[in-house]
């Protein structure tokens, strides 16, 4: 056990499968729900904390490597790729405080081709994750030439089903809107952007040097939350997996960690100035932070093993998403910005209440500004309009707005089962309410609505086959 005393890593002889058995037992004994934990493993043996409500799986960024290229490039990029995973992890511990989070870096130096995000995700579903957990998989590509470094990040959010073993669910929202007369209309939509592709970003070598400097500082483990004697330094070695719990977080960037494998602990720090640098180079961290919040909110709204008070989470999630979107379209990119706004909107919609529904509507409108041709966003907007108008405000003014958005969505995506279902539900809702039908500019007859309903039902049957 001397090896464990010298650093916080596992000795080689218990790395590999044994590592996961030991860690799983430890986590079952003390589930980190409400707590935070981190790990670093090799890409060949994926891992997730099975007791954490949400796991962020950070996969070392892929870089193009070939015999024809200079090996020096590879080493430099590889080191950057591995160090970025540590910095992302610390930043999320500091900012993604939603009551329970596991962050696992997956790295590899000798065989970087093992860091295939899809393959790692596939292995997660083979017994490494548990029902109702949420997973965010962060991966990317990185490329360097001379003074330029280009990288692109992808983030995939996954909600796991309640069944055991769980499977990844299609992210949808279902709302039953009850109006003041007691009539109910059931509406649903899929939530766009399961995988977010961030815009490619460029750094200079000088920036890389700054990241190296930030990492060098952030990898030092101190015995107290103050700069003093360095107890040891975090080493990124995929052959020596590590795992630790986060026992304390301070606003000035100090994070207390304790190894799962010995009684040693210590403090690491991501200074606010350094955190700003990381956000400058990797603005996507704000959106990833928001994704964690969104997954926690969905768990809280739906109840079950990871239920928690959603209100503080909602505010925190919205702030993270807004911070990302406010960077402007050139930095944020149209798709990521639209996803951020649509997830905020969905969370507000699920919270319910007039004010929250108004905020949901505003978020969906923001999303549509970024992606005006996205049928799912128009569908979501229609749902928010229906909830606001039919439940809280004046149905006669809302009905046309709901119908307009649904028809626009159908025009873009005529096979969308959710939009078809919503339009059919709307027409069924209107059939018994002539005052609402007459509020529509084209003043359709009940027969026309019934005819449309028949066609919509036939489409639903075709798409369900």
């Amino acid at each position: 056990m001397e090896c464990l005393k010298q650093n916080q890593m596992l000795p080689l002889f218990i790395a590999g499968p044994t590592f996961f058995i030991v860690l799983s037992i430890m986590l079952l004994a003390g589930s980190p729900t409400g707590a935070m934990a981190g790990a670093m493993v090799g890409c060949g043996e994926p891992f997730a904390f099975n007791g954490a409500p949400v796991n962020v799986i950070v996969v070392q960024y892929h870089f193009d490597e070939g015999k024809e290229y200079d090996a020096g490039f590879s080493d430099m990029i590889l080191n950057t790729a591995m160090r970025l995973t540590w910095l992302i992890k610390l930043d999320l511990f500091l900012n993604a405080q939603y009551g329970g989070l596991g962050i696992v870096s997956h790295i590899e130096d000798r065989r970087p081709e093992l860091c295939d995000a899809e393959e790692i995700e596939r292995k997660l579903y083979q017994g490494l994750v548990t029902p109702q957990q949420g997973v965010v998989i962060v991966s990317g590509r990185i490329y360097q030439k001379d003074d330029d470094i280009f990288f692109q990040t992808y983030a995939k959010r996954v909600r796991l089903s309640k069944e055991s073993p769980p499977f990844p669910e299609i992210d949808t929202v279902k709302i039953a809107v009850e109006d003041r007369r007691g009539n109910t209309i059931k509406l649903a939509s899929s939530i766009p952007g399961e995988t977010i592709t961030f815009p490619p970003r460029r750094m200079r070598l000088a920036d890389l040097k700054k990241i190296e400097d930030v990492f060098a500082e952030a990898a030092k483990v101190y015995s107290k939350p103050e700069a003093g004697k360095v107890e040891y330094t975090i080493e990124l070695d995929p052959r020596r997996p590590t795992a630790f719990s986060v026992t304390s977080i301070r606003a000035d960037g100090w994070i207390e960690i304790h190894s799962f494998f010995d009684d040693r602990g210590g403090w690491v720090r991501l200074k606010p100035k350094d955190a700003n640098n990381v956000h400058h180079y990797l603005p996507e961290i704000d959106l990833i932070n928001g994704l964690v919040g969104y997954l926690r909110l969905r768990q809280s709204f739906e109840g079950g093993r990871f239920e928690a008070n959603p209100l503080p989470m909602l505010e925190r999630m919205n702030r993270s998403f807004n911070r990302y979107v406010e960077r402007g379209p050139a930095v944020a990119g149209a798709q990521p910005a639209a996803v951020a706004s649509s997830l905020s909107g969905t969370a507000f919609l699920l919270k319910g209440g007039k004010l929250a529904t108004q905020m949901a509507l505003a978020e969906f409108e923001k999303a549509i500004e970024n992606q005006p041709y996205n049928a799912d966003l128009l569908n979501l907007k229609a749902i928010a309009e229906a909830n606001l108008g039919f439940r809280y405000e004046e149905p006669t003014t809302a009905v046309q707005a709901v119908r307009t958005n649904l028809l626009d969505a159908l025009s873009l995506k005529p096979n969308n089962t959710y939009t078809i279902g919503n339009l059919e539900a709307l027409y069924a809702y209107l059939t018994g309410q002539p005052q609402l039908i007459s509020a529509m500019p084209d003043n359709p007859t009940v027969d026309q609505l019934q005819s449309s309903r028949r066609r919509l039902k036939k489409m639903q049957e075709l798409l369900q086959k």
Partner: protein
Amino acid sequence: MNPLSHLGRHLGHTILVPYQGGPNIQHAGLLKHAEDLQRELNANIGSKISYETISILWPGRIFRKTVLALMLLLWAGLPPVQADPPPCAEISKSYDDKLVVSDITGVPAPTSGFDRRDVKSALNMKLEALEKDLEDVVKFVFCTNRTPSGESDYQSKLSETLNDYNVVMEVWGEANENEAVISYLVVPLRHYEHFIGSNDELTGFLEVFYLRGSANTDLAALFRDAPEAQALASVALGLKYLKRASAAIDPNQITYNFNYAREFFCRAVGILDQIRPSEGRSGLEPEDWQRLFAYAKASAYKCAQLALDDPRYFGTLRDLDQKRLKDCGCCPGGE
């Protein structure tokens, strides 16, 4: 959820096929059988008359088969018109809709300027974004030793072969010290519009240049987020599904395919709208962008008109007014 995963779920397991059991949805294996039949007929009949064309001209099943048999007999004594073989073995391994990525050529590592590795990495980033967007709809096929030289490689026979194998687009690149070029061949455009439709403006061949010393002066331009690949693939898939809808007999398949054709064309309109050359985000030349945008928009409308003119189409486009049909959704943000 991937916006197209709904389509992918259907395509992954069951595919609607004409002549194979009426309105029922059939397994993909039967599609291959139907496509084999179509390919066989096309090879014998020649490039200008396809099985799809015959299906449209003579919709009755028994009558059509009789006519086909007579035509085959008529052509039996003539030397068959052979389509070109696929240029890479990977292409002929399946009949799935596919995007072919061919090799990057050029200097390996000059002292300055662009090199092969730059183009390869930039293309990888662009294609990975496309793959995440379309992974349920198209397969990616890599022809690592294939190096197309340009538009002239794609004569009518090769274009037809690629189209028959459901190649929706081929992408490749070239680099030298002064410029980097990413080339796209949109196969259905090339085959249906350029060769069959004799449209000289829509060649289906597009090049995106990154020149040193121009507005696109450095590597950043090469790596910049310009989703032209998504737009081009969407146009290709729109046209592909439109042809499938037009060739289909079964009302379910007609409805299903017209709707997906419409979706892909509108998708292309949406993406192109966001990369208008005036905003400096498009890698496409302004004239190419203009042609493609006009084509995608007109095709989305034409697709809707064809669907509405077909009495067998029972889909949701019938619920939409002319303005919505024309504009891919009316007035984003509400009326």
